[in-house]
């Protein structure tokens, strides 16, 4: 029955780098360059070495961003990550103060995070009727609540011996912090998995049309569980590095991290409707926001201004494409 009409269908793809340069990622790169030029002109201390020194604080959030992109591409949301970071950090500090060796402490930190992620995932795949927003709202309160109980009336804990944590906060050549390399490696892994593997393709399929993906044989619930678990796992890692900067934890540790991670992803072109967005965009956006924070911080700008800019960026990055799309549509119908 082959092609009675003899019609041929092209199978030559558009180059993906072209799509990126002329797409949202291209705009993000321009913004990134512009911001860096601006700060290096107006601020004498905006230098490479200084930026690297201030980075670790902000890089911890990138650990959360990576799996959060998966969750958002799935068309879902997880607002419990900040609380997971808090609980993991608290538990690792307690483990350390109880005299555990550092490798065991690190393991505790990561396992606690992973366990929290699994809890989210298991509730969500067993009760698919529930929106992830409300489930993670509840677990957010629970996870932070457990940390509050563990921390007791003081509400905070300090490391009595921070040697182990100091060792991961070290720097290569006294310049580039370890965490930078780790973030880069993690970002590459997460990016490649999303773009190049069957797992990544399935994530996009679920986010674009969950039902059609299920009909096509995608293991929807298994993939959701894995994604939530990954988010928990990375929250554990983030908590570990956060503790290595803060030497302790308290009830407000990780406050707002979930929002920051989601904001970075959305600004990076990842849509919470699902099925849209790529890892490079999210990572560039993370670095833009990091540079903004460092640059404005050096200029002694009120840190709240950064929140203001972040909020505006978040809304505009979704609003502007929507407006231009609806204008285009109007033009078309008029024609």
């Amino acid at each position, binding site marked *: 029955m082959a092609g009675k009409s003899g019609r041929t269908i092209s199978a030559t793809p558009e180059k993906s780098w072209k799509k990126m340069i002329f797409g949202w990622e291209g705009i993000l790169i321009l913004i990134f360059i512009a911001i860096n030029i601006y700060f290096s002109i107006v601020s004498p201390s905006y230098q490479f070495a200084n930026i690297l020194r201030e980075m670790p604080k902000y890089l911890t959030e990138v650990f959360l961003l990576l799996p959060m992109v998966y969750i958002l591409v799935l068309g879902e*949301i997880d607002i419990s990550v900040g609380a997971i970071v808090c609980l993991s950090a608290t538990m690792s500090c307690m483990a350390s103060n109880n005299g555990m060796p550092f490798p065991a402490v690190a393991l505790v930190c990561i396992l606690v995070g992973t366990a929290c992620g699994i809890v989210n995932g298991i*509730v969500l795949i067993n*009760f698919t*009727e*529930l*929106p992830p*927003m*409300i*489930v993670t*709202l*509840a*677990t*957010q*309160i*629970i*996870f*932070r*609540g*457990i940390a*509050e*109980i563990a921390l*007791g*009336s003081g509400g905070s804990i300090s490391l009595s011996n921070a040697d182990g944590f100091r060792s991961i906060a070290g720097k290569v050549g006294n310049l580039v912090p370890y965490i930078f390399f780790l973030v880069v490696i993690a970002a590459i892994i997460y990016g490649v998995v999303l773009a190049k593997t069957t797992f990544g393709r399935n994530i996009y399929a679920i986010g674009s049309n969950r039902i059609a993906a299920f009909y096509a044989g995608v293991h929807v619930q298994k993939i959701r569980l894995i994604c939530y678990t990954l988010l928990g796992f990375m929250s554990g890692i983030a908590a570990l590095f956060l503790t290595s900067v803060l030497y302790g934890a308290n009830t407000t540790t990780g406050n707002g991290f979930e*929002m920051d991670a*989601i*904001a970075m992803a*959305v600004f990076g072109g990842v849509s*919470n*409707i699902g099925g849209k967005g790529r890892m490079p965009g999210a990572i560039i956006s993370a670095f833009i926001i990091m540079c903004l924070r460092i640059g404005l911080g050096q200029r002694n700008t*009120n840190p*709240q*201004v950064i*929140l*203001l800019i*972040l*909020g*505006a960026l*978040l*809304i505009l990055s*979704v*609003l502007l494409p*929507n*407006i231009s799309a*609806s204008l285009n549509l109007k033009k078309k119908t008029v024609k």
Partner: protein
Amino acid sequence: MKENKSILKKITGSREASLIIVLIILCIVIQFRSPSFLTLKSILDMLKNNANTMILTLGMLGVLLIGGIDISIASTLAFSGMSVGMLLKYGIISNTFLLFVIAISIGVLCGLLVGLVISRGKVLPIIATMGFMYIYRAMAYLIGNSQWASAENLGDFKNFALGKVLGLNNVIWIVIICYAIFFIVMKWTKTGRKVYAVGSNMEAAQISGINVKNIQLLVYTVMGTLAGLCGALTTAVYSSAQPNMAYAKEMDVIAACVIGGVSMSGGRGSVGGALLGSLILAIIAKALPLVGIDSIAQNTVKGVIILVVIVLNVLTQRAMDKNNLKGREM
């Protein structure tokens, strides 16, 4: 089997009835453990201290009914509260009534902006309100320029929360008035019906000529208005205005709605449910120390309760569906 169905239906069908039962059991248990609980004074205190959650729950009811969400409300509250605080602190305005008008106006504008971005800009509610959560919170900080307003700054304004009309605290009056207005609007006016219609089946609402965008705009504006009002109320009740006030309050409010049976996907929920949901949450917070649970465990208990409630919802719904299927003759 038929009887079984009707019993199940009665319990789950009237969400309010089951919530009232929960509330009564809760009260009895607590009263048993701590006789000081059910005194008029302690109840009134509780209402006064939870006034802002109770009022915000109403606005959130509207937002959730149309299938939306608003997590910017705590920031709006802080923005309006700080505005009031700063106006008093620098002695620009000291008239209590005028200050309330200003606080509410700020809320209206904040809500209107949120509503415009969501209804006209077609930005997802969670993303849009997350953005405004940052922006309004930043405004709260910036307007105070790292200052805050303490009790002595607030002058006469804080007396509003102490004043009484007909023997009842002003703050409680405001809560009652808000609930009365909402109850009437949601049940007995066309506008209320439209909100339910949009949430239950947006496409059908459009086909039947309801302007969905305007309903969205309205709901978010009302939410902002109430948040603005609560900014002034909170400042008066706690005699202080700080830029980080009501941090994460939106989560409490959403939780109250969910406990009160408001569906996150829209179309389901009532003013009575919102009232009961916020009352249950308030009583739990108040009662935990009374029954010997350390106040430190409060949040954990709260979270577990939310989780249990939503899971129970799903389970009863599944049981009901199964019962309906059994009823199908073949």
